[in-house]
């Protein structure tokens, strides 16, 4: 019988660096209040957003992904030629065919890496992070660029006050490499496909629709178990968590999740949504990048991540920050 060989991978994987791209145009709640029936107080109370970024025509998803990816590469200390896999998590591609990961890789000067787009809703980047870490451990890849990028405003009816105040644009990225000591915990991923209509751009329609109460209920009740499982599988507990960075969907969801987990007072909670809005697959890497830039997170911090959203999908893991 012919035996098939497998490569020796590595014991673990780790994040080497982050990069972020935020569109130039800042849109405040007051600006939105001029063209639709809403106001700053309502938006802040309901979702926790003070301002968000909307991409201009020249800030394409490819451009933003390249910008974020390039910064992550620089932060990692690696060369483009060291990268052999590019994962690009997005729900808002410019075209269905082709996916954009190969083009992003090409523009970054990465020579012919494995490259694919990944659509797992707002959980996409955490799904991609899990996949990337697994690839490194198994030997399918050595150094991986994991991008989360969105132009959600392409898929949002910007006259609909229910969604126009929430969804926004941007890209975040991380470069991963092998590690003797695991610095990325096992991914806990899942889905609730019975709720597939809860967050959607219905076929034939132009804009996003979201069943707010149903999603809020799901996010604040069903995902505590996932977060606890992610910690358990990584061999840590709430007291070990220095940083909590869930998908920045709604500030009230984030606060309620943190409360239900009984995280210690000292845990830094990512609240990038206040300045960035909800950027779906870009939101976790953007939030981690923001915490690093502000100094709220430190190298070596243990971070609990969770993506969750359209699908409905969810994925979480514990990581050590670079």
């Amino acid at each position, binding site marked *: 019988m012919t035996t098939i060989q497998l490569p020796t991978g590595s014991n673990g994987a780790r994040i080497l660096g982050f990069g972020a791209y935020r569109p130039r145009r800042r849109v405040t709640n007051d600006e939105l209040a001029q063209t639709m029936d809403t106001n700053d107080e309502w938006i802040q*109370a*309901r979702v926790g957003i003070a301002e968000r970024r909307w991409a201009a025509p020249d800030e394409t998803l490819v451009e933003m992904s390249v910008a974020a990816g390039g910064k992550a590469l620089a932060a990692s200390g690696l060369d483009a030629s060291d990268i052999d896999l590019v994962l690009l998590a997005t729900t808002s591609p410019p075209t269905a065919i082709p996916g954009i990961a190969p083009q992003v890789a090409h523009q970054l000067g990465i020579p012919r890496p494995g490259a694919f787009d990944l659509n797992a809703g707002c959980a996409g980047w955490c799904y991609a992070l899990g996949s990337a870490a697994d690839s490194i451990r198994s030997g399918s890849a050595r150094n991986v660029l994991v991008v989360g990028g969105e132009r959600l405003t392409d898929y949002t009816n910007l006259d609909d006050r229910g969604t126009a105040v929430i969804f926004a644009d941007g890209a975040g990225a991380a470069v991963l490499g092998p590690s003797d000591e695991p610095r990325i915990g096992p991914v806990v991923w899942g889905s609730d496909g019975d709720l597939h209509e809860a967050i959607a751009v219905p076929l034939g329609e132009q804009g996003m629709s979201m*069943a*707010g*109460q*149903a999603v*809020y*209920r799901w996010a*604040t*009740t069903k995902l505590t178990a996932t977060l606890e499982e992610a910690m358990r599988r990584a061999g840590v507990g709430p007291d070990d968590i220095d940083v909590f960075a869930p998908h920045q969907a*709604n500030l*009230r969801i984030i606060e*309620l999740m943190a409360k239900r987990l009984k995280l210690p007072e000292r845990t830094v909670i990512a609240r990038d949504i206040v300045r960035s809005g909800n950027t779906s697959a870009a939101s976790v890497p953007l939030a981690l990048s923001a915490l690093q830039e502000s100094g709220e997170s430190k190298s070596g911090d243990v971070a609990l991540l969770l993506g969750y959203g359209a699908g409905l999908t969810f994925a979480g893991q514990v990581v050590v920050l670079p």
Partner: protein
Amino acid sequence: MSREDIQTGLAEILEEVAGVTPADATPEKSFTDDLDVDSLSMVEIATAVEDKFGVAIPDDELGNIKTVGDAISFIEKNQG
């Protein structure tokens, strides 16, 4: 459980979730108009009601619960 006991339990939930003063949690009060409780807080209240009273309030039923009295009646009617 009596309506009085339910009201007390519900008042505890309203204080915890939405900072409502227990003395204000009386049957005629409207959640949105009188107690400043929005639709997302109503979801939190429904979750807490399920934990405390064992009564589930699905989203479509939640829309029909406008006052504290409506909530008490729903819980009373559906308790095991």
